[in-house]
């Protein structure tokens, strides 16, 4: 394995900074859409720095272990991805990271936390098929599961697997924790049940969860970039457009029930994904 270790290390250092800036910009754009001024750009960094200054009330010590495992595996996922590793391993590491987050929420006896954990599990089930099919589609196109081969494939991957791209875009909203799929935890609606997952996280534990979320955002944007890797300029523009679209959807849509989220994600993935992979498999060119 000749992984490009350097880019992996760069990811580990820069991803929290970029992720935090994206979160800050997100909050400003959201505020402007709602006719408000909004917080400063660096607000997410202030929030996390503050959380590390607070007393950490750990309900059960295992919770801390799980949350640390969550950030370690999220960072591992991203580092492996950006160093050009095996995309299947990346997907499985991402799942494992989320399993640790769910275990962390289950570790507490608070009913809100448990409901949040259950919902996060459902979101994971909704998300998994799409990302695995995307990995399979990228393999069929580039004949390799390695990110470094996929990214150097000369041809527009997006034009060969547009169905998978839209399926991924649909579940991307879940991973960004945005409406209409912000049912396990959300950046808004702090008083509601949907804040469930993080109910019993406080102080540095909550801060770690937030940093892990930044890592994940950057990793997922990197994953979307793979579809546009043939031209970096188009790739970056596509990422900005997609993220703005996500913010817009977040602000205009109401939250759906978990059953709708799960069913619709599976149906869209099944229809778009399988049709797309079928066409790709039996292609004549």
């Amino acid at each position, binding site marked *: 394995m000749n992984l490009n270790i350097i880019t992996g290390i760069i990811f580990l250092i820069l991803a929290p900074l970029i992720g935090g800036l994206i979160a800050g910009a997100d*909050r400003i754009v959201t*505020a402007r859409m*709602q*006719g*408000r*001024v*909004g*917080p*400063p750009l660096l*607000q997410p960094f*202030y*929030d996390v*720095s*503050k959380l590390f*200054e*607070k*007393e*950490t*009330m750990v309900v059960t010590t295992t919770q801390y272990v799980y949350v640390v495992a969550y950030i370690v595996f999220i960072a591992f996922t991203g580092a492996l991805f950006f160093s050009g590793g095996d995309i299947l391993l990346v997907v499985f590491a991402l799942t494992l990271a989320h399993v640790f987050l769910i275990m962390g929420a289950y570790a507490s006896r608070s009913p809100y936390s448990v409901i949040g954990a259950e919902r996060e599990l459902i979101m994971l089930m909704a998300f998994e098929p799409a990302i695995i099919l995307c990995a399979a589609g990228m393999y069929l196109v580039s004949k390799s599961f390695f990110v470094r081969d996929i990214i150097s494939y000369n041809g527009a991957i997006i034009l060969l697997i547009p169905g998978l791209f839209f399926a991924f875009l649909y579940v991307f909203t879940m991973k960004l924790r945005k409406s209409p799929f912000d049912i396990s935890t959300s950046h808004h609606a*702090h*008083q*509601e049940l949907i*804040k469930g997952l*993080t*109910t*019993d*996280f*406080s*102080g540095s534990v*909550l801060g770690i969860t937030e940093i892990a979320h930044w890592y994940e955002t950057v990793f997922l944007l990197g994953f979307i970039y793979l579809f546009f890797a043939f031209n970096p300029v188009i790739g970056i523009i596509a990422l900005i457009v997609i993220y703005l679209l996500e913010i817009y959807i977040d602000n205009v849509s109401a939250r759906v029930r978990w059953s709708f989220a799960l069913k619709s994600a599976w149906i869209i993935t099944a229809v778009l994904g399988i049709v797309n992979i079928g066409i790709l498999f039996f292609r004549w060119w």
Partner: protein
Amino acid sequence: MTYLARSPWVIHYDASSCNGCDIEVLACLTPLYDIERFGIINTGNPKHADVFLVTGSINEQNKEVIKNIYNQIPEPKVVVAIGICATSGGVFRECYNVMGGIDTMIPVDVYVPGCAARPEMIIDGVVKALGILEEKWAKMEAGKK
């Protein structure tokens, strides 16, 4: 250096208030006042909160609730009593079921009188509380060393 004052997250509890002060508290979140400019978020979770806003007076029904919320907020924390009922019991202080202001149950750092307290007053009160929050944090750090 502390970031507490840059990102104070509040939790709001309505202790037998008439809803007047509560509406004024929520008015602070509207585009007109937009307290998120200062990084203030209204959390519904004491474990995430730094500032405890209480409206209304203490009675037999809610004294345990207030104590419970207060104990669940991680240190450092400040309490802001909003409205005249929360500061002293107001016109209800003679009632058979009212024990008085919030300070009869938990230590209060800032009093914001008024019936109802205006959003400007509430924001001013929270900003005063931030100074106290920083002092408490400094004491906490000194205690660690």
